Structure formats: C-alpha cells, structure tokens
C-alpha cells in the first residue's frame, strides 16, 4: 500500500518535470516574436530588441527555463508580456470559471451515463437496450462544439429560453449564472455522457456474467438487488478509470466550448495568449492544465485502491 503510494507519487512528479521541459521547449520553437506582436507593424528592430531584453527573451534558454521553474515552485507565475499584470491571479480567476463548467459537465455526464449504461446492459438483448445503444453511438460521434452550436440555435435563438452566450459569476447573480451555465454544461456533459454510457454498459455486462452475481441471484435476490448490492462496486473500477481520462477530456473540451459560448475561462485565456504570443502566460496555463490532468490520474490511481480491496493486498 505505502509502496504503491510512493511509486505513484514518483511517477506523478517525474511526469510533471518532463512536461515542464516539453511545454517550455514547445514555446521556444513557436514561430512569432512576442515583442514584435506587442509593438506592431512598423516597429524598428531596435525597439523590438529593447523589448525582448525587457521581457528577458534575450537570455539563454536554460536560464529562462530555470527562472520560470523557480518562479512556479514559489507560486509565482510571472507577469504577462502583453497586459503587464501578474499572471497568477488571472489564471486563478479563469480556472474557477472553467471548473464550474467541468464539474457541471461531469455531473451531467454521470447522471446520464450511469442509469442509461446500466439499463442498456440489463436489457442488452431487448429492443429498448438496443435503441439506447444507438442513441449513445450518435452522441459519441458529435463533437462538443457542434452540440453547443445546435443547443444555441434551438434553445437560445429559436425558443429564446436561455441566453446564447456569456458568463455571470455565481456571487453576482446566481439565477443568471445558472441560466448561462446550462447550455455549455449540457454541450460538454451530453457528449461525455454518451461516451461514458458505453463504458458503464460494458462494465455492468461483465459483472452480470460473474459467478458471484449468479450466486446472489441463487440465494433469492432479484436481478436489480443483486446488481445494486454486489455488482455496482465491481463495475465501478473500470468506470472510474475512464472517468479520470474523461475529466482530462472535459478540461480540454471546455477550451473549445468556452469559445462557442463566449465564456472567460482558462480556454479563452489560453487562446488569447497564443494569438498575442504572450508566451509566459501560455506556458503557465498549459502547465496548469497538465498539472490538473496528472493530478486527476494520480487521484484515480488512489481511488482504485479504495474501491478494490484486492489491489491493497496485492502490494
């Protein structure tokens, strides 16, 4: 148990270090000069050189890397090249927005996937199960941004029930916050829900074929009771793995969905940073995303152990 924890922590830290080198290297080879973008079209080479010096871009790459890394370890994300304000608070503000979106999307995905997947497994030879299965296949094929556009056209533009886009912080106006959250969360959640449904279905199907479930039925439990008491926890192990991967997908999907719904989250911050060549900001945001994904995987690893006692003894 302890060994496994140490091993997982090691993997987590090494992945983080390798990612930081990759992210930095990628930014360094990205074409386009931040100083020239900031100074505009007619800037003299001298002015550009001065600004590069001010940004610290004229220093050797290893120096730039270790300075950046040192800052990160102290919680200092640096100052934006373009807006000249501290990056840390900006990332923190935007992350809150994105987290609302991701969490709401995840909840919708789970609410859709667990009952639908279980039902599909329980009725996998019946018409209703097959029909549900077909619907979920369609869901898997639709990208989140397209779902978003369709939802906007139907529920905002045609029916006028919900706003087409925008964002209001929950503390400012909770009603408006919820109204504006519904469509983007659905766009993210329904698509992920469709994917998750497939996994829930196959996990439950596997469990249904297990001997212990037959034993449970034999001692007189009804099919649903057997599944509830003995099956679901076992089915949860593979589903949790997928859920972890999906959280990462949701985070990335949010980048696109934020664009469609004009939501000032981490994704729009990232895209703006790329187009302004605000490289330090981009580096920081990408590292935050990487950290989030690695952290989720780490937690998923730990959750296995909690869910499945066999893994505890194995170590």
């Amino acid at each position: 148990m302890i060994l496994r924890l140490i091993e997982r922590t090691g993997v987590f830290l090494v992945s983080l270090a390798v990612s930081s080198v990759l992210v930095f290297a990628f930014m360094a080879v990205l074409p386009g000069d931040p100083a020239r973008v900031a100074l505009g079209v007619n800037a003299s080479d001298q002015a550009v050189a001065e600004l590069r010096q001010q940004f610290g871009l004229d220093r050797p790459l290893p120096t730039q890397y270790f300075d950046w890394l040192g800052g990160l370890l102290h919680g200092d994300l640096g100052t934006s090249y373009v807006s000249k304000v501290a990056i840390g608070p900006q990332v923190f503000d935007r992350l809150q927005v994105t987290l609302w979106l991701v969490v709401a999307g995840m909840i919708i995905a789970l609410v859709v996937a667990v009952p639908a997947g279980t039902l599909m497994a329980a009725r996998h030879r019946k018409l209703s199960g097959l029909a549900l299965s077909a619907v979920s296949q369609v869901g898997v094929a639709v990208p989140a941004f397209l779902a978003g556009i369709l939802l906007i056209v139907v529920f905002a533009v045609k029916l006028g029930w919900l706003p087409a886009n925008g964002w209001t912080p929950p503390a400012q106006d909770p009603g408006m916050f919820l109204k504006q959250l519904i469509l983007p969360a659905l766009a993210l959640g329904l698509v992920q829900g469709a994917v998750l449904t497939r996994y829930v279905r196959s996990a439950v199907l596997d469990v249904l074929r297990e001997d212990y479930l037959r034993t449970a039925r034999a001692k007189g439990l009804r099919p649903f009771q057997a599944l509830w008491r003995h099956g679901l926890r076992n089915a949860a192990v593979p589903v949790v793995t997928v859920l972890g991967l999906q959280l990462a997908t949701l985070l990335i999907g949010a980048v696109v969905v934020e664009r469609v719904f004009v939501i000032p989250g981490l994704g729009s911050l990232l895209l703006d940073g790329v187009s302004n060549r605000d490289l330090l900001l981009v580096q920081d945001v990408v590292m935050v995303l990487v950290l989030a994904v690695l952290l989720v995987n780490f937690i998923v690893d730990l959750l296995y152990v909690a869910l499945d006692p066999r893994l505890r003894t194995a170590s």
Partner: protein
Amino acid sequence: MKSSFRIRAVAFVASAAVLALTACSAGSSTSGGGSGSSPGGDQKLSIGLVAEPASLDFTTTDGAAIPQALLGNVYETLVKQDDSGKIVPSLAKSWTVSPDRKTYTFDLVDNAKFTNGKQFTANDAVFSINRVKTAWTISLKAAMDVVASSKALSPTQLQVTLAKPSNDWLFRMTTRIGAMFSESGVSALATDPVGTGPFKFSKWNRGDSIVMVRNDDYWGSKPFFQQITLKYFKDATALNNALLTSTINVIGTVQAPEALSQFTSNDKYQVIEGTTNGEVLLSFNNSRPVFKDLRTRQAIRMAIDHKALLDTCWAGRGKLIGSMVPPTDPWYEDLTGVAPFDLAKAKSLLQASGAAGKTLRLRLPTLPYATSCGQVVKSMLEQAGLKVQIDQLEFPAAWLTTVFKNADYDMSIIAHVEPRDLGAVFNAKYYTRYDDPTLQGYLAAADSGDEAAQVDNMKKAARRLSEQAAGDWLFLLPNLIVADKNIKGLPTNAITENFDLSKLAR
C-alpha cells in the same frame, strides 16, 4: 488653416484581425441622435465588438482595439475630426499657425478635469507630447518626431514648434498620438486609464468585457448612457447570436457579411453600411525580380475581376477602389479605370515580360477576408497564366515575422486600416519594398505645402501608385453595423481610430 485638413478618417476596425495592423474606429456620427442632449438617466447599452484589447495601454501596445475603446471616450485630444472629417476643436478651443507653418499656438479649454480630480492645463499637454518621444514604444510614435519643442505659455495656452512644416502632424494629433494624459495619471496605464473624456473606465472583465460609466464631471455635454459595456466576441456567429437574443444592443463590426440577411429581413434591427479606411491590398514584394517588370505587375491587376472577387469573397459588401485612398479622403479619385479587368491583355503582358508560367507564393494571414479572397485571386491569376502557391500564416504572430518583418513572400493580402497610410505602406523600408523617388517627391510636397498643394500632390501620388501597379487594391472594407432599431448616433463611416460612445442615444 484648420480647413486644410479635410480628412476623415475613421472607421472601425473592420475585421477581427485587422487589428494588429492598426485600425481605426468609428467616430463620426450621422444621425446625431442624442449627442449632447440630456442624458438618459441610468440607461445602459451593450456593444459587441470583435477584438479585445490585450492591455489598456496604447502607448506600449499596438493594435486597434485599445484606441477603439478608449480614445475620445476616456482620453481626449487637443483636436479631433468631426462627422465630415474636418479637424475641429476638442481640448483646444482654437489654434493659430505661424506664417512659416512651423509654430502652432493652441488656446485650451479651462474647465476640463481628469478623472483623478486634477485640472487639465497646458503643462499636461506639454507632458503628453514630450512623453510620446520618451516613453511610448509603438511605432506610431514616429509621428511626433517632427516636433522640435513644446511649451506652456500660460495654463491655457500651448505652443508647439515643428522642425519643418507638416500637414500630417496636426492630423496625427487627432489620433491616439494626440491623447492627453495627466502627469499624475500614467502610473498604471495598462489597467487604470485616466483621461478627461465623457466616460470613465469602470471595470475590465478580462476575456469578456470592458465597462465604462458616464463621467458626470465631464466639461462638455454629457453622454446619454449612464453605462456602456463593450463585449468582446472571438466568433462571428456568437456575436450575431448575442444580438439575436438581446444580450447586446449593437454589433459594432460585422464579421460575416454573408450572414447579414438574418438582420436585414427583420425589422427589429437597423443595418448601417458605410466606408472605412481599410484598403484590402494584394501586396507585391517589389524587391523580387519578378515584380521589377512593370508589365508583370500590371498584368496581375488586369487579370483580377474585382467586382466578381468582391461578390464571391465578401458578399458584395465593400467598395472598389483603384488606389490606396478611401473615398472619405479629400484627394480621393476613382482610379478603378486605370487597370480594368482584361484577361487577354493580362495574358499577353505576362508573355511579354516572361513571367508566364512562373510560380508566385501567396502567403496569407489567417484572416477571414484574406483566406476567402486568396482562393479567388489564385484562380484568377492562374487563368492568366501564372502559377500561384498559397500558404497560410497564423495572424498576427507568424505573418508579422515572415511577411512583414522578413519580407519572405511574393504576394500577400492584408487590410491596411490606418488613416492616410499611402506613404507609410509604399516605401522601400516597408514590407512592400516599394522604392520610388517620384512617389516620395509627391508625398514630401504634399506634407509641406498648403491645402491646395497637399490635395494636388496626394492625387498625383495615388495615381502614380495605381499606374505603377505597386500593388493591387482588391476592395475597401465596408463599415457594417447592426443594431436595435431604436439606437441613434451610430457612425455611417468608420474613419477614425475610436468608436465614439458619447453620441449614442436611445
């Protein structure tokens, strides 16, 4: 003297992207509406725009979005352009010019106050003018190089002496270069702008919107709206949807002209169409051997059917121009007849110059109009016997470095949206690499002469460019605004750098 500048410039940025190439923003109002009338209580307005500023400091960050939001609204200039493009008083009540055309004396208003509570005086003007040379970093600051000295004769009188006569200088003073700052208000320009204008900067929700509120201490007539929100949209469809669902009241710059029909067919909305300063230029790298031959350049111009091109790639919205001058400039002439569409002649010119069959590299920025028009240009040039290889460069970063700085291209397409930018775009140092002493002679004479000489020489310069086929002017970007029917004071033409919020009313 003042009348010698009959320019209009304006325009707001016509395309999301155009912005890094500078731009101009709406200014002049036509319907007048609530300009200066009694303020509309606590009424609010929301305007959808396409490019969010990267910073609020236009002294060190280029791009059209910052002056679009702040100039004329938060910051004011000594002189500004009126609806007809004439230079008129703003913070300067009047001014005189010495007989040698080098010394300008401005009489300033005595009741203007900065939003930090400080009185506006001639010392602030001296400070602001000097600061352009010392603290600004964007390239536009060069417009102030011609100033030899400036001094405050009294708290309300300012004298500026130029090193040589320059018609252009006073015009540039209507742009962001002429913005007046408070000596004690420049410590946080990027986040906390302090000006004398009709609006106060209130809040910036990064990634979303900028909120301005009426400056109730404004020295001039107070604006109608108590609060105006500028909301920024990356996506043209999202912008349209926001108006359709009443999230915003105005689309400041329509990004997808092909989608206009959903508004024109609905009487809840008004659609305003006018001109801008945004010349969409098919630029030639004049330093490349293939472009040294006048016949090749002329052939390219003649191979393009401009009317068909405009219809195909920009839904027929926009105006055909034959040179680098928008119709709102005093020296505008219709030069579309200089190189009319003539495929047969284009073919024979290419044969004669030996360029037929050669491959030209058309390097396009990732901007909507460039991408769609680039394909049309390619097919038209290939019909005339050239080969065209298109590649796309991310705008602004990659395009700026490759095409703009390194001039590693044969042809490109970009809208030049600065006002009066003929001389800036066509010279040997610029990415067009156009070295033409005759043109430079006309431009120098225009800058130093009187009003008549300026107009005459600028006309010659524009004609020279067109006849020499220094590039091809595909069309002029339209100013397209869609708004709720009851909004008044929106500009027909977008020929200044700012979107004038003070004239809007309901």
